[in-house]
């Protein structure tokens, strides 16, 4: 079952997973506030749902396909004009791998 407590360390772990550099003050704030919300959520966690199927979506979804034919797409220059950094018609990002040895 669930433990409604959320420690500051839990908050720091979740922030890492979510890729947000929270400040020390924010970690304290969210650990406290999320614990209150999770306490409310505990009534859901405590319900007996034996044999109940989960619902991911209100519609009975199935895969939607279209004919494999070329059609107009977004304008490349218009899209790239909105990017923070661009080089040679591509999105430019800081290095992903470590330094070359």
């Amino acid at each position: 079952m669930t433990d409604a407590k959320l420690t500051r360390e839990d908050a720091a772990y979740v922030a890492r997973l979510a890729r947000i550099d929270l400040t020390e003050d924010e970690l304290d704030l969210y650990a406290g506030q999320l614990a209150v919300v999770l306490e409310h959520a505990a009534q859901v966690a405590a319900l007996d749902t034996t044999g109940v199927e989960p619902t991911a979506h209100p519609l009975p979804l199935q895969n939607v396909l279209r004919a494999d034919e070329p059609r107009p797409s977004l304008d490349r220059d218009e899209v790239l004009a909105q990017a923070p950094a661009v080089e040679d018609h591509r999105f430019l990002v800081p290095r992903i791998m470590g330094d070359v040895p």
Partner: protein
Amino acid sequence: MTSALTLAEQVRSGTVSATEIVERHLAAIDESDGAVHAFLTVLHDAARRQAAEVDRLVAAGQDPGPLAGVPVGLKDNLCTRGVPTTCSSLILDGWCPPYDATVVQRLRAAGAVAVGKTNLDEFAMGSSTENSAFGPTRNPYAADRVPGGSSGGSAAAVSAGLVPLALGSDTGGSIRQPAALCGVVGMKPTYGTVSRYGLIAFASSLDQIGPFSTTVADAAALFEVMAGHDPLDSTSLNRPAPRSMGSLDDGVDGLRVGLPRELIDGVAPEVAARVAQAAEVLDAAGATVTECSIPELSYGLSAYYLLAPAEASSNLSRYDGVRYGLRVDGDDVEAMMRATREAGFGAEVKRRIMLGTYALSAGYYDAYYGQAQKVRTLIINAFDHAYRNADVLLGATTPTTAFPLGDKVDDPMAMYLSDVCTVPSNLAGHPAISIPFGTDAAGLPIGVQVLASALCEPLVFRVATVLESAAPPVTAPALAAATWSAP
């Protein structure tokens, strides 16, 4: 406020030009929106060009569309090509989408004129519009109170008379709750009836675009213009949208109306009294009103505040400083992403991402997210059971009338409770409408809510039309613009 359908008829018949109507509303926005702050962007030039095009069609004897010349406000989470679309977030400040949302295209094709982008809680997360990076919107009925949220800008714009129509999005009540607090009509359609293409995603299995208006007929007309299959949205229903305009005045004689105590008990006494009064109206009009109980609805809020943040944490992972929006530099790509998201997201968005990430994380997934999905099934089954004995349900839209600015910003759980009457319809994907039904003793608007099963929009609009005709008269808000008039 002259109704949208009346304005469109004037334009279509050549009595009044679209240009004249649009100029009048642009002037009202310029004069009055400083006090309301409903708009983030006003599209003076584009609106004038579009109005001139409508007038050209009328002069040429061509059909300018069912909403010809009607000024419309667009919630700023709807993509508009070449026009800033911010979601009230610093992370998208200055971003101009390279495409239009399907609803924006359909409105234009119907002759409606987009006059501006309206304020919202950042990424539609909130119930007061205080979570906007660009400052709160004021409730036109009391400038020191919230308009509700997240579509508070759209609700306030219609309430103050700045526009006769506006679009919002409703994930857990974000159209109906502000409509109730601002004294206007607000409707959430059946999931899948209105294309979400170009609606910036918050919680994809719950989000739905819907209308704000001053009359039920205007809401139905706007819904019909927007609804219908769209191949660009894979969750769009591939079937004809329900038509309501022809049956608005069919009345409620013989209809079965359920009054679930879960949508009435626990709300403020003055709100509950208005729901009881609305029930009497329907009874007098020939409906059979029966009290009922749907206990599962009381679990809706807890399930919602696990499911919606979980979906949001996934959807908002795209804001990483790579393809659009804000970037804060870092030594490597991950440091850049962490710094960008820390600087770009506001407090509530971070809170929801944290909550959702936690609910989806290893060790907690089954207990929180998985369990909430099962509770969603219980709620859907409970609705289905209730609709065997009732054609529609009637209840409160919100537990209270508009609360003071700042009242709940430091207490997230108190803010979340504003949505307790509205989230069940989102979990089930059902349609629901809020219509103004009198005020409390302080003169603040109260909304009553009509709920129905999937694709029963015609029923929802019929019942709402009866309630509208018997509702206490709407009084002018304190911040009414020159274009405001009683509906």
